[in-house]
């Protein structure tokens, strides 16, 4: 009798557990930020750190959006202005401006963003592929995440760190 009961209980537990686990696996944690008027997000695991703006050195013979290089505790990293990368005007530095250091495999660079918004968890199923109408040659957008009231463009980190000049 008791063993039967145990088995039933176990079965119930398993049933409860599995969907929960699946759900956890499917959720992606992202860091949201503003560039221009639009909100973007990057998987939190690809972000090495976020720092306040520091001085950088211009590197000649590079596209506009490559602002230059900066010194992050002894390493020299490239600095890329996301506004200009997205075809907007050059960002004006203010107290919300941050450098987001993104690392993917061995590629690493700092990106200038206008403002951080929030950390978010979006289930995989509520991420849609980028609409085809978006003209996106470089494949910079990984997908569009739906939140209760708004949409967030999730960036393709690998493409972001790929040199295209």
């Amino acid at each position, binding site marked *: 009798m008791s063993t039967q009961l145990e088995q039933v209980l176990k079965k119930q537990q398993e049933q409860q557990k599995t969907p929960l686990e699946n759900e956890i696996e499917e959720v992606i944690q992202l860091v949201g930020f503003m560039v221009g008027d639009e909100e973007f997000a990057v998987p939190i695991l690809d972000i090495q750190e976020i720092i306040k703006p520091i001085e950088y050195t211009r*590197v000649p*013979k590079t596209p506009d959006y490559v602002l230059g290089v900066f010194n992050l505790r*002894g390493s*020299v990293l*490239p600095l890329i202005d996301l506004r200009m990368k997205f075809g907007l005007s050059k960002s*004006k*530095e203010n107290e919300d401006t941050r450098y987001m250091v993104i690392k993917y495999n061995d*590629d690493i660079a700092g990106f200038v963003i206008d403002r951080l918004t929030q950390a978010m968890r979006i289930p995989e199923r509520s991420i849609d592929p980028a609409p085809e109408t978006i003209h996106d040659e470089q494949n910079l957008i990984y997908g569009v995440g739906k939140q209760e009231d708004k949409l967030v463009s999730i960036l393709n980190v690998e493409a972001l760190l790929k040199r295209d000049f």
Partner: protein
Amino acid sequence: MDEFDEILEDFLVEAFEMLEQLDNDLIELESSPDDLDLLNRIFRVAHTIKGSSSFLNFDVLTHLTHHMEDVLNKARKGELTITPEIMDVVLESTDKMKALLEHIRETGSDQGAVDVAPTVSRLEAILGGGSPAEAAAPAQEPAPSAQPEPEAEPEEEEKDLSEMSEEEIEAEIERLLKQRQEEDRKRREAKKKAQEAGETVEESGEKDISEMSEEEVEAEIERLLKERQEEDRKRREAKKKAQQQAAATQPAEQKPAPASQPAASTPKPAAQPARNTPKPAAKERKSTVEQTIRVDVKRLDDLMNLIGELVLGKNRLLKIYDDVEERYEGEQFLEELNQVVSSISLVTTDLQIAVMKTRMLPIGKVFNKFPRMVRDLARELHKEIELVISGEETELDKSIVEEIGDPLVHIIRNSCDHGIEPPEERVAAGKPPKGTVQLKAYNEGNHIIIEIVDDGRGMDPDVLKMKAVEKGVISEKEADQMSDKEAFMLIFKPGFSTAAKVTNVSGRGVGMDVVKSNIEKLNGIIEIESEKGKGTTLKLKIPLTLAIIQSLLVSVQEEYYAVPLASVLETVRITPDEIQSVEGRSVLRLRDEVLPLVHLADLFDVERVFSMGEHAYVVIIGLAESKLGLIVDSLVGQEEIVIKSLGEYLKGIEGIAGATIRGDGRVTLIVDVGALMDMAKSVKSGMQNLDAADVKTEKTKPSDYNILIVDDSKTDRTIMRKSLEPLGVTITEATNGVEALNILKDGSTIFDAALVDIEMPRMDGYTLASEIRKFNKFKQMPLIAVTSRTNRSDRLRGVEVGMTEYITKPYTQEYLMNVVARNINLNVE
């Protein structure tokens, strides 16, 4: 298995080291075939490799080295004279040996890599054909065969047994045993041969060691030892006798010795050097072995990186000290700080030098392969060439030693092939038939100089020019303008070769191009001197190390760049009218040279904010064979910098070799001198554009003037604004130093003056002023302090940080207006 790997690794390292030496010894041997010392050394190498490889079960290698050893042994005993033909075979087997060892290093086995059979059979042919005496030897009675053997090689380490320590005796026994084994093997082989030839061979009294029982071996050792002792005794007696009778009559048992050493006249000199010389050599070797350790190169690289960080830290500390010194002059703690800073910087420098030294290798590592190469070339080209090497002990960073090999190969090949004439031609020109190529290395400051000098036919600049025009490398016009030196440099152009016929050695027009690019990679400089009929000298000037370099810091507008000091030939200060124009290009006449000039700002598209002053500086850079004048706004100074890569994303940017972190934590880019030279060719002079920029900023009406007001109090800002209103100038406001600095740096408006309050949150007026003055473009901007601080020391501090005027509150409207108007040169009606 691990242990085996370890042994294998040791074996390989040792074997390669020995081989390097072997090549040189062999070449030397060819010129002095009677040098027994040399022969013994060579024999020992072959012998050691054979021994180790048989232990490690490398059968092919053992087979090959065994035959080599036999040939060398024969030569050593004087039964064989080394002729060039024999040398060819020996060298060939050395090559095979190398190939085998390389194969072992890669795969761990010596099977199937190299076919040694033909070489071995050639070695056998030498063994067989070289001396028929060999076949007869085993037939002799044991006693006589044993007796002449050791005496035939008096240079061998024949130590007196009675003087030996236990270990030495042990070693001696081992040596003797080995000798015996070899003899046995030889004899067996000879026997086989003899049997094949159908002869019956008398059973010799010598037993095969491998077939012996332990006791037998023991007995054999005993016997051999006795024999040795007996010999020693005899020799001692002979020596005594020889000493007694000054004019020695040669004792019977010494007879074989002169055969191998015809020069020896009395037994005494023959025996003595043999006894004395090997001993100290052995001791020396022992002590050096104990004092060195092998270290993985990666560890050294890591260490070098860490030192690099330390150097950056040191630079930073020095910079901070300078700042602190300015601010707290005369304070007690400054002295202490000074001591700490200078001792740290001293230690860091020493540490850096020490680590650099551990990475240094003698250039002999590279030079070693050249005697062999030149010898082969000489035979192939039917010329007589002698290679004279000097300065092989000169040390260089490991990475450079690795890079320098290829270019040197090409240069030396070139010297042998194109430079040195065939013997007949040399004799006809009144030179000795044997040509000389000299390879020299020596230090000069922070550089090492490698010179390759040949006494060949030299180069004819006119012929070079003609060829170059013919091949379309340069135009006829260019050729006319070319100096002789520039003409010599033509040999480095891709697709240029003057060899009348393309040989196996050179003439394909690839090599010298490689030389140039490799030397450039090392930040080196090439110089050529040549005189027709006399010979050619090629000089390579290479920096000692690559990771940490001395650099010249220059500034262009607001940007700083580091130029590797190794490439800087000189700097000159010029006025703008010294710059002349030839065909739309700027040039500078410096002494008797005309240098192409280019502004660094044009190369790197630096925005021109302010115009060139009365003076500009020209940094003359030289790389490989070309020179270029680089115009910069100012020279900042010399600094030791650590090269850092720009990373994957930005690598390969034209004109930038890397970056470094300066004392203030900022990143400064290091220019790639080689790339700059190329870029300079396509840059148009930007000097003229400057005037246009000036016109644009000319003010026509009061509202063209921009004034920045920095004050945290709204009331104060309003008062200032009101006071300035009558002037009609445009006014921008900032509430603190940080905001003001950002507005200034933003650059969208260029301000003609700034009114600065002293006491403000976040950044005060003093700090703001000193920050502003850090920018070249704001150096001249009037900064007017407006403050209620009336203290004398406050005023003084204001002047120190770069304030132009100091106005104390309260002030009259007119006063402020006048001060501002005066500072921006605005006429008030």
